[in-house]
């Protein structure tokens, strides 16, 4: 069967830097084509070329047998190519229907035809089996997974034959990912060509029929998914196999650095836990079980209202982030861009952010600190928004290293960063633990949580449901997380 889209020999340079070099990509109807590669490998650029946001320097795009050249995203949309962006492109204050038809509102007698807009949206939602979403609902009232559905409906409403998804699960919880799987499957079986960009190997292998690996702007391999293994893909991306991703576990467990007994607030009940020097404790649970609530409680963002709280054996009161920082508790937040960094400020200023705020302006060796987190940047005065996700996260870690924490709470520390950077973050966390810091790590990716943790606490419904030893199976964790027994 002829492909819907055939991109061949695509090259693209930005300011003399080659981002794509002679890349070919075919997208067939009824097929999910996974595009993988580290950040900076050229995935987004290739996607943007397809979507008309960038024009290739060389190469051609053939759509349904005809060569095309898109001047703008609008052109590509008209031709039936839609992108579902990583960051949702929805207006939270407008309704589902208004968002779906944004920029293409049907008009009747000079007015926007709301009835038709809502009926069309309802039809599309029904076609996807999403009966729970009302076209009139304000988008801000929907959970993130359903917002993603709205984004996909928006793509469908343009009669898209090709849908490109950029890290669609980055903002989703585990059970929401299942919904997305279903949705992608339904899109595929309706004959749409799906280009699926993701960092997560499991999704790539669950969903795709074909995998293309990019590295440094060139195509490394492109093959049917059933003819390649996860290890081979990872090796093609970074040149090292998967099982060497995680550093060795802790050899010894030191003194208790942080202890909470009977802690609770509006979201948490009877939380008792101890974090010791040298260990990495994993915190697992379904979305909404209270994992982040524990992180936010320990770090004074949404403080505990009951229970005892001790740091290094001393009773403390942690009622604000400032108090937590003063007691040596560091918080790598889930939302790196929103809560972790001042995006328009420099690497240097971000690194010094907490230190200056909580301990006054004493000079420290920022350069050395940044070297220790293996930051790759164009200098300490570069604005952090121009860094890749992985390097941004390294700046967040440096920011906390600058205050020599006793305890580090890391909420989804590898979210949305590439494989290479993930490995660095793993190593940094382990080095920190070895230096005597107690670490609590939260992750939605179970293989990662299990690979990293010296023991695993599992949450269910605002409580700690149980504790599992290092190397437990995913099934054991899921059983506790869903309210079963260990």
């Amino acid at each position, binding site marked *: 069967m002829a492909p819907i889209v055939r991109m061949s020999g695509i090259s693209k340079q930005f300011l003399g830097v080659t981002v794509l070099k002679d890349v070919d990509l075919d997208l067939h109807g009824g097929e999910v084509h996974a595009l993988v590669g580290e950040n900076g490998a050229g995935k987004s650029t290739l996607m943007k070329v397809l979507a008309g946001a960038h024009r290739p320097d060389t190469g051609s795009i053939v759509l349904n047998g005809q060569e095309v050249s898109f001047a703008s995203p609008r052109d590509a949309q008209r031709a039936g190519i839609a992108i579902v962006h990583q960051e949702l492109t929805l207006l939270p204050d407008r309704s589902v229907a208004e968002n779906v038809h944004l920029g293409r509102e049907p008009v009747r007698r000079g007015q*926007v035809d709301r009835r038709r807009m809502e009926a069309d949206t309802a039809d599309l939602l029904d076609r996807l089996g999403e009966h729970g979403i009302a076209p009139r609902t304000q988008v801000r009232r929907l959970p993130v997974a359903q917002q993603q559905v709205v984004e996909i409906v928006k793509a469908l409403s343009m009669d898209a034959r090709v849908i490109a998804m950029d890290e669609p699960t980055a903002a989703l919880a585990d059970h929401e990912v299942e919904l997305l799987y279903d949705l992608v499957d339904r899109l595929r079986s309706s004959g749409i060509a799906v280009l699926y960009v993701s960092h997560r190997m499991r999704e790539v292998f669950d969903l795709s029929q074909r995998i293309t690996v990019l590295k440094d702007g060139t195509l490394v391999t492109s093959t049917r998914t059933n003819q390649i293994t996860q290890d081979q893909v990872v090796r093609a991306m970074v040149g090292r196999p998967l099982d060497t991703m995680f550093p060795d576990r802790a050899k010894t467990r030191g003194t208790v650095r942080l202890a909470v007994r009977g802690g609770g607030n509006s979201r948490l009940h009877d939380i008792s836990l101890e974090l010791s020097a040298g260990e990495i404790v994993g915190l697992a649970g379904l979305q909404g079980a209270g994992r982040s609530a524990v992180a936010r409680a320990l770090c004074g963002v949404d403080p505990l209202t009951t229970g005892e709280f001790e740091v290094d054996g001393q009773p403390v009161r942690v009622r604000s982030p400032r108090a937590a920082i003063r007691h040596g508790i560091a918080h790598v937040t889930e939302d790196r861009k929103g809560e972790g960094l001042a995006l328009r400020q420099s690497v240097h200023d971000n690194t010094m952010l907490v230190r200056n705020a909580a301990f006054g302006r004493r000079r420290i060796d920022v350069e050395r600190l940044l070297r220790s987190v293996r930051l790759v940047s164009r200098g300490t005065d570069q604005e952090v928004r121009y860094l890749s996700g992985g390097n941004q996260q390294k700046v967040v870690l440096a920011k906390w290293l600058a205050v020599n924490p006793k305890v580090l709470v890391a909420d989804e520390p590898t979210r949305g960063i590439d494989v290479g950077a993930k490995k660095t973050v793993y190593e940094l966390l382990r080095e920190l633990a070895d230096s005597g810091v107690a670490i609590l790590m939260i992750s939605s990716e179970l293989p990662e949580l299990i690979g990293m943790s010296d023991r695993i606490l599992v949450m269910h419904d605002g409580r700690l449901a149980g504790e599992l030893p290092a190397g437990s199976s995913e099934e054991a964790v899921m059983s506790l997380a869903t309210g079963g027994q260990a």
Partner: protein
Amino acid sequence: MTATATRQPVRRHGTRKFRLTPTMSVYIALVVLLVAGSVLVGMRGGVLLDHGGILNILTRGTVLGLVAIGQTMVILTGSLDLSVAYLIGLCSLIAAETMAGDPGMIVPAVLLTIGFAAVVGLVNGLVITALKVNAFIATLGVALIIRGYLENTYTGPAGSVPRGFQHLGYDRIGPIPVSTVVMLVLAVIVWWYLTRTKGGYHVYAVGGDEEVARLSGIRTGRTIVTMHVLCSVMAGLAALFLVSRLGSGAPYVGTDAGYDLESIAAVVLGGTLLSGGRGGVAGTIGGVLILATLDTIFDDLGVTPFLKDVVRGAVLIVAVALYARSQLARRAR
């Protein structure tokens, strides 16, 4: 199809709960203010809402209303216009000097004034969208340029308006000035445009998130420029009403009344988000009426100008703080 038909009502329930919108709260606040004002003024032996009182509120509200309608449009796109006050001064002079007491010149003068205002709006919009200058700075710059011209060229009122044109400012239907009716009709048209037409949808989209709007194929620059042109035209109309009442043009007729900040205050008081994307004209008119009613009450009570400003400032801050609170509650769900 039957499946859809049975599901549809289910969908509509659940989401259609009663919610107190900012617009509703503005009008509730207005009613409370009118009642409280009537009582206060009544205790002093006066009547707030007699013929003169209503006239007073509406006259004050009309010019501010025109400016604030325009301001609402630009603020909804996420922009803002600080040049309206000086523009009103300059437009009043253009109108009065062009008419120069000659009834035959009314139509050309009106067209010239509106045309000039539109050009200023176009400049505002292009500086913001094409030169990428922050709206605050861009319109402040334009305001300063107009001020410089006014200070250099005029020392006081100039031009004169033929008697026929003064009907616009003074004619009434009962206690309601014709100018108020014109203002309200314009408000309804703008309300319809913003809430019912494609262009209006795009205004909300641009103010909600310019990048999202752009990626959805909306011409964001054009939307912002259009709103700036309309905003300036509304300021031009405001100038025409002022001229018809004053009988001549005056360089500082707009700034003395503080129409720049006052109009922004009315918009924000009316529940429109200063960063754009949410709100509307209905709330703005409520905000205008609240400010006008406050003034009238203060006049009836003989309150000192200082206390007047203190109360107005406090009302504005409290209102915005309340909106922010309800916003937080929404986010927390």
